């Protein structure tokens, strides 16, 4: 037994009061679905059923779009930016006030460690609303002309990896620009979006400005193909993104897509090794690797390969996997059985293709969906685990010899969402950054998010930018 064994330090669930079942949030009120279909939402860490959630059908989508249209035409688009800003500021403050509750709820429904939902997700949610609240009355200074117009009703579909944060990325700029929204959270993580619906009520947001409809793929399809939608925003898999792009192509709908990634995290021989190791860990094991911009391909300069790998293995030995609500947990649960199956499958492919698999000693809980932090070495560009997005805590390690080779390997992927560079040499950072085809390039850090910074992809990682001044463009008629 370890000398200094941290005793369990669970965050209390008492701050969260769950209802047995949730309706759809349409026109400012919770209402049952038309055809009465529902599904259960669980905690992926224990498989405990948390609540029953309505599955919205086409008629419900239609009601939501109509409510959003009405709010757009009669209230929100007419309201001066200074007034819209007040609502956004109010929402931001309520998120801060209810931060602990939202963090616990997020960890319960998603499986991510409370340390992350408490210190990263929820503070960023509030920050996004604060940031875009500031833009609402300053749109004429955004660089899109004197009085840029909103688009109308936005249909937004978000993923399960950062449920409330992705909601904030979508809703805050849309509302700031004067649009109204119908948002569908992912089927496995609807609860914080439904809590957000309550926050809209609490903030006295005019009915219909925000509508939240729950459901799975069918509901999402009905939403993005609805003729009453002016703008579609989607974050999720490249496969679904392509389908949405095809559906929107023959319409007037404006579309932004934020899709998959296979980011290179590039460590040079003169890197600050200890911090680079932290960056590697943060790059791929943050949020169990359920991050579209995860640093899933580690590129290490050959001259420091053994040093970096030894340090990385030692560091992984200290990762604490387990109860997402324990304040000392570093790695939580995989979000769903389906995702776990996919991670397992690709990891087996990695082994079959000849890469060497390693995980630190680590006990996995019996119930729930779990996968140990895993590192593959001896990976080449031809391996599937170097090309396909695994979306789990699985790192593929490759090596390079020169900066030019690092650029070539980093760019040799159908994706282009993010990249990381680790070196003490400023000129090398700039040289690399200008050649990497990735929407975000982090230097001596990784997975750093800020509402002022635009985020988005190259190639199959999607198009359009979210965050910052750039993020306004997606919701303005420009």
């Amino acid at each position, binding site marked *: 037994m370890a*000398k200094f*064994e941290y*005793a369990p330090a669970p965050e209390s669930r008492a701050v969260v009061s769950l209802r047995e079942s949730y309706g759809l949030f349409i026109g400012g009120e919770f209402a049952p679905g038309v055809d009465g279909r529902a599904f259960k939402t669980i905690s992926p860490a224990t498989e405990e059923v948390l609540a029953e959630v309505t599955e919205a059908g086409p008629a419900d989508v239609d009601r939501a779009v109509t409510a959003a249209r009405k709010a757009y035409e009669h209230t929100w688009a007419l309201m001066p930016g200074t007034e819209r800003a007040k609502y956004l500021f109010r929402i931001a403050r309520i998120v801060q006030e209810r931060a602990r509750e939202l963090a616990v709820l997020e960890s319960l429904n998603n499986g991510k460690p409370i340390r992350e939902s408490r*210190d990263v997700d929820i503070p960023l949610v509030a920050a996004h609303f604060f940031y875009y609240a500031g833009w609402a009355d300053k749109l004429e200074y955004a660089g899109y002309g004197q009085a840029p117009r909103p688009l109308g009703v936005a249909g937004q579909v978000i993923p399960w990896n950062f449920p409330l944060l992705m909601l904030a990325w979508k809703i805050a700029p849309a509302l700031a620009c004067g649009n109204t929204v119908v948002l569908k959270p992912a089927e496995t993580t609807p609860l914080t979006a439904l809590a957000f619906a309550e926050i809209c009520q609490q903030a006295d947001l005019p009915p219909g400005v925000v509508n939240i409809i729950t459901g799975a793929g069918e509901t999402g399809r009905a939403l993005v193909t609805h003729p009453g939608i002016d703008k579609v925003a989607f974050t999720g898999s490249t496969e679904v993104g392509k389908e949405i792009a095809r559906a929107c192509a023959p319409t007037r709908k404006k579309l932004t897509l934020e899709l998959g990634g296979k980011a290179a995290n590039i460590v040079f021989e003169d*890197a*600050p090794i*200890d*911090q680079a190791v932290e960056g590697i860990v943060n790059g791929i094991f943050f949020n169990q690797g359920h991050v579209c911009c995860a640093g899933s391909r580690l590129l290490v300069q050959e001259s420091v390969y053994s040093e970096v790998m030894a340090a990385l293995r030692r560091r992984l030995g*200290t990762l604490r996997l387990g109860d997402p609500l324990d304040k000392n947990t570093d790695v939580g649960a995989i979000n769903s059985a389906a995702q776990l199956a996919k991670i397992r499958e690709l990891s087996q492919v990695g082994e079959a293709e000849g890469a060497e698999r390693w995980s630190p000693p680590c006990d996995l809980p019996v119930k729930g969906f779990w996968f140990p932090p895993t590192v593959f070495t001896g990976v080449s560009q031809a391996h599937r685990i170097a090309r396909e997005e695994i979306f789990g805590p699985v790192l593929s390690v490759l090596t390079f010899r020169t900066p030019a080779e690092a650029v070539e390997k980093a760019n040799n992927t159908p994706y282009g969402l993010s990249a990381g560079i680790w070196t003490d040499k400023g000129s090398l950072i700039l040289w690399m950054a200008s050649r990497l085809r990735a929407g975000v390039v982090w230097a001596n850090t990784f997975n750093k998010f800020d509402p002022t910074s635009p985020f988005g992809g190259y190639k199959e990682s999607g198009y359009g930018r979210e965050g910052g001044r750039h993020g306004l463009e997606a919701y303005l008629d420009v």
Partner: protein
Amino acid sequence: MSALADTPTWSDVSLRAFLHGLPGVDQVGAQARAAMLASRSIKTTAKQWALDAAISMIDLTTLEGQDTPGKVRALCAKAKRPDPADPTAPMVAAVCVYPDLAQVAAAELDGSGVHVASVATAFPSGRASLDVKLADVKYAVAAGADEVDMVIDRGAFLSGRYQEVFDEIVAVKQACDRAHLKVILETGELVTLDNVRRASWLAMLAGADFIKTSTGKVTPAATLPVTLVMLEAVRDFREDHGRQVGVKAAGGIRTAKDALRYLVLVNETAGEDWLDPRWFRLGASSLLNDLLMQRTKLATGRYSGPDYFTLD
């Protein structure tokens, strides 16, 4: 890292090449890591263990111009029996005083198991001739100090005269005879974390048994990021040289919560081999009473006031 380190003789040039060849420290990253570890939640049984461990790692310190034999005797009594109301409270590791009072402390602590530490080498500035510094060390050791806390010549270090710093540590180590040598880097004057890493390696290469953050006379004194970098240094040094060097964080650590954060840092950076008074120390004075107060709270479920703990 190891090739040059094994060469028996050094020069300013080779020391510079070696120290500047160490991996850099990214300050933002180091601070973020220290902050993340500071958010660990230490409860119940873990807290119980950690509070006692922290007490047993304290170098109970008085380094004031107004120190007297009476003050030192009182401190020694406290060191041997920190909580008169609770004999299960562990002893501290050492009492740390100026050389002229080492004899008083040695007499009081004789046979108790509590070590006698004395600062030396023209503490805290280190601005004296080498002869004076060595005489200071010999005087402290002759008076009964079995641990010597020296200061490095920060001026020489900052102007790149690494050989001079190195030679001085070697000479002091020799003068220490069998006493343990703690080398104070005074990180508040070195300022950058790169300097902290280089000074740590320099001290270890020259034979330090411990590397210590601060004198306590300069602000900032011990900080979590600085201690993190020093813990990384001793961890890497043992891997390269097979010799384990201790770390002492000193100055500004006043609350039990702070102390527990340092223990977490040790645990998750250098590892549990260092979670022992032989390898990790906390230089402090007021910290002890807060640890005792938290210890009593954990045992009884109630907070008692500061008047229930002795002030010495």
